[in-house]
């Protein structure tokens, strides 16, 4: 048997992985390309969710239900570990998003805009060129 | 009183004196009295210890065990005893001298001065008596720290700058090199004990010995080897009693004493000789001797010149250790005594000149000899001793260093020692010669014909300064004749393991 270069059904069989990759790439693209800080945070969250789903899908056992104790000893559960892990990851994700949003609000107050390019321009002027009397209280 | 108690007492007296001096700060006469009394008491105890050491006793006291294997232990052997005797003996002279100087020069904050002085002496004695590298390292650092306020005594910007350089170099070299060396030794041999004939024999791959020696040599910044000698001239901002005792006796001698002790009791002279590990140190010490002498030649400031002279003379002792034979150790140890006696006189004279005539530059000293004949005679005697001219002590230590160089077959080193003597003549003797014999610059050419009788107008430093100067100058001469005893005593320093007492 010559070694199979591309195992086709393996590739097609893991369609859900491809879904997560696409989701991840979109999140990445949003973060990279958008200048608006809020949109960057949204992109970040997309990226994050794709990772969560990847873990969950890895833990799925055919016929296994969500790993929540039902009192019936012979129910088949999916692998609980990824679930637990992702639960915490979700919580952490929320926390980071909250922090990011708080920062954006402060940036908004300081620079009057959330567009990153404008902010960079302002910082540059502040450090080196004319000191622009920014309205916000530093 | 057993030897062990005497040992502890010798360390305790300066420590107690510290507190007494602090307590009597408001009454200067009592405070000075205490400091002199403490020095005399310490010297008496040290002398009692000396007798028992000569009789062969080797007292040892373990103070506290910090951790298993790490103890603060004091044990006396001949070399340590010698250094302790020199330090405590000259403490008396300097205590008396500093009374005269501090009052003559109207220095302020004298209480803090005497406290730190006593602490420094206590640290020096502890170094002398330390039984292992750990104790030695602790008190080595205590000595550095206790001398910092002394160097920065005047609290002028220059004094602070000088003290910063002083502390900087000494602390960095000791932590960077010495601590590493101590730890490396401990890891290699499992012990830090000073043992006759050295502990490294067989525990270390001979290839590493030069590196360990380098760590020790540069680690002991107080021995003022060339790259790390800057602190000594920088410490000259200190008032003269500090320069006198510390930079002629306590601090620098602690450095070279540690060098000798490490060489003899950690590496072992025989071991050094066999592995030839100290070859590079011989050349470094020789280079230090010559370069420091040449630099001293160019210095017009009196104390800077004496400082560089000290740097050069210290390397004699390091050279003695590096030549790795018995004569080298004997010569080095003897030079500790001779140089201490001579150099302390020079520094005290420099102080007396400052107090009496407010002159610090060598070029200003022309014709001063007529006004201060005793000071300059003492200066001349001390210079003769340091140059190594015969009727004075220094000749013998140079004799043994030359013997050691001959034993080691180093003819070039003999040449270096000879050249250094000539350089010493050039930069040391020119001072008393100018003072006595060259016409004072301000006066008209002196009266022709009639041989100049020393005019009766003596303006010497206060008596408290003058007496110690004459004492130590006489010491230089006495040492020449009393050298037989010192030689017998120094022979008892164990060179190879089997001769351990």
């Amino acid at each position, binding site marked *: 048997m010559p070694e199979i270069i591309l195992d086709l059904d393996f590739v097609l069989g893991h369609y859900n992985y491809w879904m997560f990759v696409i989701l991840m790439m979109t999140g990445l693209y949003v973060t990279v390309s958008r200048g608006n800080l809020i949109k960057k945070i949204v992109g970040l969250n997309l990226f994050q969710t794709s990772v969560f789903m990847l873990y969950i899908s890895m833990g799925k056992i055919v016929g296994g239900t969500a790993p929540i104790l039902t009192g019936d000893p012979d129910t088949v559960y999916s692998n609980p570990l990824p679930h637990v892990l992702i639960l915490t990851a979700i919580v952490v994700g929320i926390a980071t998003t909250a922090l990011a949003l708080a920062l954006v609000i402060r940036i908004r107050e300081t620079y009057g805009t959330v567009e990153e390019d404008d902010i960079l321009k302002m910082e540059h002027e502040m450090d080196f060129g004319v000191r622009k009397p920014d309205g916000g209280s530093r | 009183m057993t030897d062990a108690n005497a040992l502890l007492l010798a360390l305790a007296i300066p420590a107690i004196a510290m507190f007494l001096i602090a307590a009597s700060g408001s009454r200067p006469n009592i405070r000075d009295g205490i400091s002199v009394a403490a020095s005399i008491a310490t010297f008496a105890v040290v002398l009692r210890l000396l007798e028992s050491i000569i009789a062969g006793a080797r007292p040892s006291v373990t103070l506290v065990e910090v951790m298993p294997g790490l103890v603060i232990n004091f044990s006396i052997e001949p070399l340590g005893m010698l250094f302790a005797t020199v330090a405590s003996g000259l403490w008396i002279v300097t205590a008396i001298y500093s009374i005269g100087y501090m009052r003559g020069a109207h220095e302020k904050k004298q209480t803090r001065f005497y406290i730190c002085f006593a602490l420094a002496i206590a640290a020096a004695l502890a170094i002398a008596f330390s039984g292992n590298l750990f104790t030695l390292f602790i008190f080595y650092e205590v000595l550095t720290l206790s001398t910092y306020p002394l160097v920065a005594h005047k609290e002028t910007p220059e004094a602070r700058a000088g003290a910063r350089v002083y502390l900087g170099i000494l602390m960095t070299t000791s932590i960077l090199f010495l601590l590493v060396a101590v730890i490396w030794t401990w890891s290699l041999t499992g012990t830090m004990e000073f043992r006759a004939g050295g502990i490294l024999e067989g525990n270390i791959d001979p290839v590493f010995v030069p590196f360990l020696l380098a760590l020790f040599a540069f680690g002991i910044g107080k021995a003022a080897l060339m790259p790390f000698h800057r602190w000594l001239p920088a410490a000259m901002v200190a008032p003269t009693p500090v320069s006198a005792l510390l930079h002629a006796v306590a601090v620098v001698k602690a450095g070279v004493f540690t060098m000798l002790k490490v060489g003899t009791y950690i590496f072992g002279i025989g071991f050094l000789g066999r592995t030839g590990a100290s070859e590079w140190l011989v050349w470094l010490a020789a280079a230090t001797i010559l370069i420091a002498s040449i630099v001293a030649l160019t210095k017009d400031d009196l104390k800077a010149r004496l400082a560089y002279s000290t740097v050069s003379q210290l390397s004699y002792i390091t050279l003695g250790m590096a030549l790795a034979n018995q004569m080298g150790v004997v010569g080095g140890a003897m030079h500790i005594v001779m140089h201490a006696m001579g150099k302390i006189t020079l520094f005290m004279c420099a102080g007396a000149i400052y107090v009496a005539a407010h002159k610090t530059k060598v070029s200003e000293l022309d014709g001063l000899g007529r006004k201060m004949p005793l000071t300059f005679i003492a200066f001349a005697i001390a210079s003769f001793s340091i140059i190594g001219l015969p009727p004075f002590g220094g000749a013998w230590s140079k004799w043994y260093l030359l013997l050691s160089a001959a034993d080691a077959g180093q003819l070039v080193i003999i040449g270096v020692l000879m050249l250094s003597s000539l350089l010493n003549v050039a930069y040391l003797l020119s001072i008393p010669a100018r003072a006595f014999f060259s016409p004072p610059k301000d006066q008209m*050419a002196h009266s*022709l*014909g*009639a*041989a100049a009788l020393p005019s009766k107008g003596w303006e010497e430093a206060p008596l408290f300064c003058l007496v110690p100067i004459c004492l130590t100058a006489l010491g230089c001469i006495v040492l020449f004749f009393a050298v037989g005893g010192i030689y017998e005593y120094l022979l008892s320093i164990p060179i190879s393991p089997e001769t351990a007492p």
Partner: protein
Amino acid sequence: MTDHPNGEGAGMPPLARLLSFIDKPHNVTRVFYLLLAVCIALGLSDFLYHKHAYFAVEEFPAIYGIFGFIAYVTVIFLAKGLRLIIKRPEDYYEPFAIDTEDERAAGSDPEATGGKPHA
């Protein structure tokens, strides 16, 4: 030799008056010819006695005299030649030598007259 006979004969110590005949030039030439005569006599005397000689060259009569004369003259001329090379003004080593200093500092009599210090 001395060009002018000075007057104050009386002020001189007695011994000097005895020697002052040397002052007059004709006495000087008389002494010179006396010296010449003695030398010739010495030269001739070589024939009168057996000369115990170490080296062959000593056999030759009056060789010592001639040798002395020639040696003296050569020494003088060589020295004059040498002086051309090594002569320097007195203040050549100026601050570090005693040549230009007033020599009376060496402990001369306080009323020492001469020794005009180098201008």
